C-alpha cells in the first residue's frame, strides 16, 4: 500500500522532473561544455581550452560584478528571512492577522516589473515619497539609485519586501509548534522573549536555515530583474551584478563561451553558499536526521 503510494507520487513528479531535466539540467550541462569553446552562435564553435575562464578571471568587470552580487546577497538574505519570521510571528494570531498576511504576501504577488516601477517612484531622489518623508523629518536625503554610494542600499531596500514565500513557510512551521509546549513554558514562568528564544526558534531553526539557503540562491539570480529595471547596473557599475555580466556577454556581445564560463562561476558561488549553510546545519545538529534535512 505504502509502496504503491510512493510509486504514484513519483509518477506525479515525473513531468516536473522531466521539465527540470530538459529545461535546466541539460542546458546547464551544455553550457559547461560551451565554456571550453569560443562561440558566437554565427560561426562554428572553436575549442579553446581554459581561455574563457582566464578571460573571465582577468576581466575587471567580472570581478566587480562578483563583489556586487555578494553584497546584494549577504546582507538582504538574512534580513529577509528574519523579516519573514517576524511577520509570521505577528500574523500567527490576533484580530488583524488576515489583513497582515495579505499585506506581507502582496509584494511577492506583484509582477517584478510593476514592483520595480513602484520602487523607481518611491526612490526618486527629488520627488519620491521616501525622500519627502526623510526631508520632512529633517534627515539627509540620499540620491538612492542615482548615487553610486546609495544605489546598492536602495536596491537592498526594495528587495527586503519580497518575503512572501518565506513568510508562508514560517507561518506553516509556526502552526506546527505544539501549543502545549508554549503553554508549559508559560506555566514555568517564561515570558514572550524566553518562549521565542527557547521554544519557537529551536523548533523553526531547520526551516529558517533552509529558507536562508533558498533565499541566497534566489537572490543571486533574482537581483537581475530588479537591477536591470531600476539601475541597469549603474550608476557607473555600482549595481553591476554577475547575472548582468552573463547576460551582456551572451546577448550583447554574443560571446557565449565567456558567458558560460561566468555562468559556472555563478554556480560555484551558489554551491559555496549552500555548502556554508549545510555545514552550519551539521554543526548545530538540528533536530532532524540528515535524510530529512536533505529533503
Amino acid at each position: 500500500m505504502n509502496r504503491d503510494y510512493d510509486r504514484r507520487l513519483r509518477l506525479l513528479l515525473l513531468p516536473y522532473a522531466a521539465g527540470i531535466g530538459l529545461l535546466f539540467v541539460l542546458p546547464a550541462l551544455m553550457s559547461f561544455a560551451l565554456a571550453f569553446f569560443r562561440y558566437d552562435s554565427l560561426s562554428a564553435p572553436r575549442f579553446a581550452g581554459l581561455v574563457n575562464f582566464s578571460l573571465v578571471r582577468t576581466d575587471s568587470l567580472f570581478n566587480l560584478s562578483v563583489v556586487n552580487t555578494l553584497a546584494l546577497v549577504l546582507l538582504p538574505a538574512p534580513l529577509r528571512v528574519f523579516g519573514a519570521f517576524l511577520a509570521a510571528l505577528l500574523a500567527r494570531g490576533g484580530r488583524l492577522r488576515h489583513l497582515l498576511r495579505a499585506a506581507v504576501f502582496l509584494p511577492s504577488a506583484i509582477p517584478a516589473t510593476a514592483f520595480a516601477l513602484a520602487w523607481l517612484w518611491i526612490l526618486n531622489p527629488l520627488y519620491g515619497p521616501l525622500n519627502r518623508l526623510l526631508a520632512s523629518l529633517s534627515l539627509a536625503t540620499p540620491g538612492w539609485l542615482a548615487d553610486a554610494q546609495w544605489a546598492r542600499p536602495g536596491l537592498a531596500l526594495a528587495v527586503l519586501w519580497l518575503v512572501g514565500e518565506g513568510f508562508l513557510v514560517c507561518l506553516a512551521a509556526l502552526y506546527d509548534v505544539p501549543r502545549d509546549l508554549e503553554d508549559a513554558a508559560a506555566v514555568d514562568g517564561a515570558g514572550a522573549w524566553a518562549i521565542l528564544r527557547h521554544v519557537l526558534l529551536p523548533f523553526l531553526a531547520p526551516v529558517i536555515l533552509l529558507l536562508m539557503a533558498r533565499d541566497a540562491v534566489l537572490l543571486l539570480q533574482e537581483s537581475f530583474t530588479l537591477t536591470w529595471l531600476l539601475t541597469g547596473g549603474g550608476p557607473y557599475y555600482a549595481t553591476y551584478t554577475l547575472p548582468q555580466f552573463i547576460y551582456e556577454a551572451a546577448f550583447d556581445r554574443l560571446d557565449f563561451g565567456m558567458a558560460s564560463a561566468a555562468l559556472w562561476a555563478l554556480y560555484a558561488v551558489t554551491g559555496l553558499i549552500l555548502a556554508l549553510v549545510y555545514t552550519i546545519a551539521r554543526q548545530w545538529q538540528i533536530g532532524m536526521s540528515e535524510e530529512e534535512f536533505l529533503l
Partner: protein
Amino acid sequence: MRRIIWLVPLLLLFACRQEKPVVSFMVFGDPAEYAAYEALVAAFEAENTDIDISLTHIPSSKDYRTKLATDFAAGTPPDIALLNYRRVPGFAAAGQFEPLGPYLDRSDVIQRADFYPITLDSFTWQGEVVCIPQNISSLVVYYNRDLFAAAGIDEPGDDWTWDDFLAAAKALTLDKDGDGTTDQFGVGVEPSLYRIAPFVWQNGGRIVDDPTYPTQLGLTRLPSLQALQWFVDLQTVHGVAPNRLEEAAIDSETRFVQGTTAMYLNSRRGTPTYRESAAFDWDIAPLPRGQQAAGILHSDAYCLSAAAKNKDAAWRFIEFANSPTGQTIVARSGRTVPSLIAVAESEAFLDPAARPARSRVFLDTIPDLQMVPLISTWEEIESTASEEIERAFFGDITAEEAAILARDRTEEYFTLGVRP
C-alpha cells in the same frame, strides 16, 4: 469531442492564412512612431494583397539591438529590420544581411540618384549598398517658443554660435520661486559620444584618430578636448542642464515635453512625440556653430536578412517603403526626414501646417553632415565612451580624464573591430 470540432474551422482559417507569404518586419521607436509603420504596412497590404507583413515593435533601441542579435543567433531573424547605420556594420561583418545594391539596380521604382548620396554611403559595406536608407535625419535643437517669448529673448537664428546658445541657455535657466533649486532648465541633452561628436567636429576636432581607418578615439587631442570641455561645462560650470539627481528624477526629454526645459537636442525622431504631447508652441533650429558648421548624420535603413525565406516578397515591401508613396506616408507622421530628395523637398515633409515650422533646417544643413566611422564594434565603442562622458558631464571626473578613460577602455574594440 465537441470541443475538438470547434477547432476545425479555426485550423482551416489558419491554414488559409498561411498560404500567403508572410514577411516579418521589426522596428523600434516610441508609440507615436509605431503608428507610422502601421500605416505603411496597411498601405502596402492594400496594394499587395498577396503578401502579409507581420510587424513587430520594440520600444527601446538598445533592447532592439539585443533582440535582433539574439534572433540572428537563434537563426530566426526578422526578414526585414529597420536599423541605424551605426549598428549595421556589426551585422554586416558577419554576413547577416543580403546586400540590396543589386536589387536597387534592378528596380523600376527607385534609383540610386533619387537618394541623398551620404545616406547610401552610410549603408555601404565592402563596396556594396547593404540596406536601403529610409531617412537623412540629424541632430537639431528643439526649442520651446513660449519660453523664449516669456524670457524676452530672440529665437535661435540659422547661423547662431556656441556663445549665442550658451547665452540663451543661461537666460532660460530659472529658479522661479527663489527656493534655491532650478525650476526651468535652458538645455537638455543626453551626455553621449553620439551627441558630442558634432561639437567636436565644429571645433576642428575628431572623434577617432583616423576617420578612414580608425584605431582609437580622438577625444584627447586638443580641439576635440576643448569641445568636450565646452559641452561638459554646460552642466558642471553653468548649470544650464540638469545635474545627475535632477536628470534621474525627471529626464530631460520629459522635462522638455512638460515645458520645463527650453531647448532639447534630438534628431527628427522626437517630432511625432512632441506633436502629440507638447502643449506649447515649439520649433527647431540648427546646431549652433563653433569654428565651423558641422552636423551629424542620423540615418536608418531597411535591411533584408540573408536568412529570409521569401526575399522577393520582402524586397517588394522594402521597395514600396522607399518609393515616393511609402516615404510620404512615414514622412507625414513626422518621424522621418526622407532620404528621397523628391519627397524631402515635397510638402509631405515641409508641410507648413505641421510643426516644426522650420523643417527646412534639416535639408539646409545636409551639406555639413558627417558620419561616425563604420566599424563592426562601434556600438560597444559608443556605449563605453558614453559612460565616461556622462561621468564628466555630471562632474564625477574631468573632461580630460573622461577622454583618456574613453580612449583606453575602447582600445580593444578598435582591435577587434572589422572595417568595411
